[in-house]
């Protein structure tokens, strides 16, 4: 499946250990700055409907704001109950001071 890069925001708009919501074509994503890199995942927690951009980023992990289910940001793996289903992740690049997310072409 082909992918296309989409501009999310300026890199300095996401501070270290923060996340930002990105909506595109009817879907929502969370874009993270862990301090060690920028990453992106599906926006909604896989446990219940809460947006992870409102969650707490702790190092390489994000905690859902609702029940503090934990995910490893770079891999999307669920690492703490009540989260047990992994998040889908997406490639991210930082170019010329801006963050881009790669999404499947038809999204």
């Amino acid at each position, binding site marked *: 499946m082909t992918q296309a890069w989409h501009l999310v925001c300026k890199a300095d708009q996401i501070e270290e250990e*923060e996340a930002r919501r990105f909506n595109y074509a*009817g879907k*929502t994503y969370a874009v993270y700055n862990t301090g060690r890199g920028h990453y992106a995942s599906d926006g*909604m927690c896989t*446990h*219940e*409907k*809460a*947006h992870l951009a*409102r*969650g*707490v980023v*702790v190092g390489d*992990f994000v*905690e859902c*704001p*609702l*029940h*503090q*289910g*934990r995910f490893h940001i770079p891999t999307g793996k669920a690492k*703490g*109950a*009540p989260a*047990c*289903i992994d998040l889908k992740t997406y490639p991210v690049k930082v170019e010329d001071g801006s963050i881009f997310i790669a999404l499947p072409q038809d999204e």
Partner: protein
Amino acid sequence: MSEVTATDAQSSGVVCDERQLKTLARRSDVPGLRHLGLWILMLVGSGWLLHLSLGGAAVIPALALFGTALTVPAYSLSHECSHGTAFRTRWLNESVLWLTSLIYMEGPTMRRYAHARHHSYTWMQGKDVQMPFRTPLTPKGWLLEISGIGQYLYDAEHMARNALGRFHPDVVDFTPPSELTKLKWEARAMLAIYAAGATATALSGALWPLVYLVVPRLVGGVAMQLFTIIQHAEMEENTPDLRRSTRSFATNRVGRFLYANMNHHIEHHLYPRIPFHALPKLGEALREQLPQPSRGLFATNLEVLRAVAQRTFGKRRGLTGERAL
């Protein structure tokens, strides 16, 4: 895309600046380590008083003091750790969670899933699995809860059923199928630890586990229930507004320490990602939007008991919690 869940800040019509929430939500090990250190000091101090009191009349208040010092923080710290908010360092959080869960007597994973359901559907009949008693509360129900017997029966039933793999329908409902095996082995591990302790005690003839663990835990269970029963008892049911279903109360420094600031219970339910040490600041930030906290631990318990008594004797209908905001 709708993100409204059953009970949270949005469903309650409460707003707070996101930047402020992010600041308040920041994780740190320092407050949790300080809290843990003070708890250990409290246990050593009150345990020493208990030791000195053995054999005399002073053993009763000493037992009540030590039991309270053991059980109430075990509850509040295990609750905080189950949210993952007590410490920034995960292994520290999980270690303290396990230790305090052994005292509180509920498996960590079971706690996380049951408590998540409680947060999603706070005080909603048929959905909130942590509604511990039939409502309206009867005098018998109140006694069962305040004595701690209600909790022991609930925990014993679930731990036994989980260990056998014969899960209660509620547990099957709120636990993803892939996690049920974990629940089973966790219950087995806890029961094995309890059995090993009991066996070692019986074989050695040592009394200290009874004197410093079992009996204080039972006595302290009453103190714990005084804190926890007023979280939601006699508040409005089946409402998405946490300000109607949940109670915050004012208490002194000792109460706030024992309860890890969970007297800010409405605030905790509105934003569960805020760690215990930041709850007073959150309370300040939300003050204009929240009802006045109830007066004191004992006064609030009397309020609940009065409502139960008045309803039993036909002088009051409905719940006490329906009040103007």
